[in-house]
């Protein structure tokens, strides 16, 4: 009787300690060797970008086999986590570099400011969009320096990220606006990549061209008029 009671307590304890529901539904079981292969790929590309850009601060890259279609940069641990859900959406190394470069910008930001950047998260909390645009643009610089094609950032966003109705209530700007900001940045700084564009006929890039017609017309007007200031993209 006593033994059985102890067994029940033990099993209940284990269930509380390791909630089965979340691990069973979120984590995809993959073999160690596959996990190792992907982890290697992510780390190699990540460190290649850090070194090519001579970035002065440390960060590391962790592969998480959950289904979530996302990646993030941990403000306190300075590690960048990329989920399997996101990894399987990326068709080539340039697209992987696009995701990592964006997160690397966030990670480098976490070093800025007094007390080794301790309070930087406040800036991120109160002006998140400013830093999202920054990360998108710096990602383009980082990609070019590391030998990747920056148009892959637009391809990646157009394939992976949905479109909210409004962005006033969100930490991230509308994906359509982010893609235009990247497009504008490449046009101004690295026009050769729009001319010598290996993604010209890629279906996700073609879809960007299809859906950004109005926005690109707005940008065209800005260039033609040689006007300054931000364009109000849709």
């Amino acid at each position: 009787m006593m033994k059985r009671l102890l067994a029940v307590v033990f099993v209940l304890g284990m269930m509380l300690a390791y909630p089965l529901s979340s691990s069973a539904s979120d984590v995809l079981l993959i073999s160690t060797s596959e996990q190792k292969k992907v982890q290697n790929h992510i780390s190699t590309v990540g460190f290649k970008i850090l070194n090519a850009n001579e970035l002065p601060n440390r960060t590391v890259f962790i592969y998480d086999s959950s289904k979530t279609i996302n990646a993030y940069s941990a403000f306190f641990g300075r590690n960048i986590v990329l989920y399997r859900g996101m990894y399987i959406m990326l068709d080539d190394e340039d697209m992987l570099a696009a995701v990592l470069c964006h997160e690397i910008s966030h990670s480098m930001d976490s070093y800025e400011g007094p007390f080794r950047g301790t309070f930087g998260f406040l800036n991120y909390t109160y002006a998140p969009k400013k830093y999202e645009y920054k990360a998108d643009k710096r990602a383009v610089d980082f990609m070019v320096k590391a030998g990747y094609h920056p148009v892959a950032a637009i391809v990646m966003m157009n394939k992976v990220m949905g479109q909210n109705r409004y962005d006033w209530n969100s930490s991230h700007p509308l994906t359509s606006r982010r893609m235009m900001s990247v497009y504008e940045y490449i046009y101004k700084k690295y026009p050769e990549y729009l001319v010598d564009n290996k993604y010209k006929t890629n279906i996700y890039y073609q879809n960007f061209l299809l859906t950004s017609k109005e926005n690109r017309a707005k940008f065209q007007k800005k260039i033609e008029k040689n006007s300054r200031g931000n364009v109000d993209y849709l």
Partner: protein
Amino acid sequence: MLMLPSYAIIEDDFVNATLDKNLKIKKQKETTPNSGIPIQIRIKEDFTTKSKPEEGDFIEFETVEDFKSFSAGTTVKGRIEFISMNCIWGVPADIVIGNFQIGNIALYGEIHKGGANRIIWLRPATIVGTFFFGAGLALIPIRGGHAKIKTDKIYTVYYR
């Protein structure tokens, strides 16, 4: 990569019309981090993001000492690589200047500069101030500092 048959291709008319068709991607130079001959430069005139500069604008620096055939005081052009303006809640502006050039020679290195980060005291002040008839809320529109580069500050870029 997924490709469409040629008949269905949407062309980027704007790019085709405005950019030189012969532009080719340059191979990035492989470099050893932190290598090269250091060159000290300083900005010619005090600079602040208050003047609303934009990405792609050039800023003039000058060499502090003689370098090769260039005498001290030779202009070094830097380009605004990235800029983000200051905003409410005391969030500062930040700027990255890079793509330095002396004569026709490219120089390596970037200058990163941020403005005063006022959120550190603004946030607690706002919270405490709110208990005094909501007065703290009046602090929210206070902006962070502009990024400034002064003529007396010396920066290092590299020749490779």
